């Protein structure tokens, strides 16, 4: 029997007409990988039945995982990781999509780089109209940027924060040992994770192919709200605080109490 090696973890925190459309699109981007990936949709209890009703096709094996506790992005992904039984997992955000060559690329690079536990993809950032903004994760291939061309290291991460963890491929066993997102860190939880992993000598490589497309600046998205929403917008001080927090907390495997207090 064909062994399935990859789980796609897709956290959903709410559902309405727009989110239904987004969900159908994002799941649509992995339909062709149905022989090789499992899909785990993590969602709050109150919307699970509604999501189950959405027609996401017949080919993918889908598990709906009910989040009984916190429903923020980090907690939902962490729950997906806890319940993951395949060798690898990846994260798909509801408004993002995998590129058609993602599976081929990850198959090639995981086969060739046995010592690597995290494979980031080059992420194509687009606006809500699908127009190109920039690439992310590609910089490690620039000559002399990191110690080993193509790999991310701790020193680089202490200098540069902008790395995208969604769409990355993670070795499940290693991530269960290392711990995944710290859900009490706002804004910089991805950065803290990468710092922690590289600090613990986990090898992280960027596959030099665009594997993932990420929508930037979509109103209502987590980061948009943290930057723009009147109620949840972070102040400049807060942004600085969370940046520094990531750089302090990566030494610790488990989350510790971190609270922002206005100076």
């Amino acid at each position: 029997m064909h062994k399935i090696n990859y789980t796609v973890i897709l956290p959903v925190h709410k559902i309405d007409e727009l989110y239904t459309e987004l969900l159908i699109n994002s799941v649509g981007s992995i339909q062709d990988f149905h022989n090789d990936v499992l899909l785990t949709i993590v969602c709050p209890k109150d919307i699970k039945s509604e999501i189950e009703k959405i027609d996401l096709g017949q080919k993918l094996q889908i598990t709906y995982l009910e989040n009984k506790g916190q429903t923020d992005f980090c907690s939902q992904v962490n729950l997906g990781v806890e319940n993951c039984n395949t060798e690898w997992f990846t994260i798909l955000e509801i408004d993002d999509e995998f590129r058609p060559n993602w599976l081929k690329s990850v198959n090639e690079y995981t086969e060739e780089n046995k010592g690597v536990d995290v494979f980031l993809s080059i992420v194509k950032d687009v606006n809500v109209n699908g127009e190109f903004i920039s690439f992310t994760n590609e910089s490690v291939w620039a000559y002399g940027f990191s110690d080993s061309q193509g790999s991310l290291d701790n020193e680089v991460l202490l200098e540069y924060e902008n790395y995208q963890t969604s769409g990355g491929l993670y070795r499940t066993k290693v991530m269960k040992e290392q711990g995944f997102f710290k859900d009490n860190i706002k804004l910089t939880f991805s950065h803290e994770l990468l710092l922690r992993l590289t600090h613990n000598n986990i090898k992280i490589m960027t596959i030099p192919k665009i594997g993932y497309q990420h929508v930037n600046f979509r109103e209502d998205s987590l980061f948009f709200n943290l930057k723009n929403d009147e109620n949840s917008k972070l102040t400049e001080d807060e942004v600085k605080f969370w940046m520094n927090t990531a750089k302090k907390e990566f030494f610790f495997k488990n989350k510790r109490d971190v609270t922002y207090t206005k100076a």
Partner: protein
Amino acid sequence: MMNNNENIEKINTALGRLEDSKSIVYFLTYDTKNNARASVKYIYDLALTLNQNGITSKILVEDSTYVGVESWLGDKYKELEVVSIKEDKVEINIDDAVVVPEYYTNTLQKLSNIKCIKVLLIQQREYIYENLPIGSRFSDFGFDKIITTTEQSKKYLMEYFPESLVFIVPPIIEDIFSPSLLTLKPYVVISVRDRSIQRKIISEFYLKFPQLRWITFRDMVQMSYEEFSNNLKECMVSLWVDDDSTFGTFPLESMKCDVPVIGKIPDTEPDWLSENGMWTYDGNKLVDILGTYILAWIEGVELTQEVKDKMKDTLLPYKKDITENNILSVFNSFKNKRIETFKLTLDKLKLEENA
């Protein structure tokens, strides 16, 4: 002046040396001072092929300061003896051969008095007139045989030097150039003869495609042959601009590595040019072609099988064994012709002796 008997003896000795394969082929070679040069490797390949097939060959250099090729070609050519004109006082016999590259056309005059098989080696035909006295012919100095690398060059030489015998021996595209078993890396191997054009291409590329600033251009100078091939086989694409090129070894080495080539078609179109790469006559289009190709590559687009097949087909005539047989056949024809000439001369001298 020698009398007939002395002449007969001399020719008999030379004939014996030729028939016993004791004659020597000297390849006049210039010093690259540890810099890799395909043109010098070509000379060494000719010499080594002959040497390994029973025709003694030596590398003839100006003086003992000659550095050699070991630093960039390894010890593959170690068996070839290097002799210097100045220090070793080389004595060239009438049964020996001297092969002179176009770089040394200024020596033709000096070599004109030496009686031996004289062969001119023309890889870069653009350079042949640099030191050749205006209006002179190679045959004026006894050089009636020419080895060149392409059909186009042969055609040209036949037009301007119709009295010469022109042979084609293409360079050997070594098996060290082979497809990488690993995934390719996002860098460009660049080979541009004119450094200012190379700088212009790289600058324009980064200005026009700022999102690809992380793409590295790997300049292949100061590398050993092995490092060169290792770097070439791992890159996603190679870029070639050499307007003066006659043969074009670099694109073929790329193709042998399964690495697609983007290039400007040189002033003289290479014999092998077909739909086996991304070619343009307009150097200004190179940056656009390169950017478009790289963007497609990172999106996962691959070369079509048709292009890959064309690349393979291109290489067929340049297989190592074909070229080696070609080298042997050319030099054996020189030898046989010389034997024939000696025999005819002997017959003539003997007739005169008996008259």
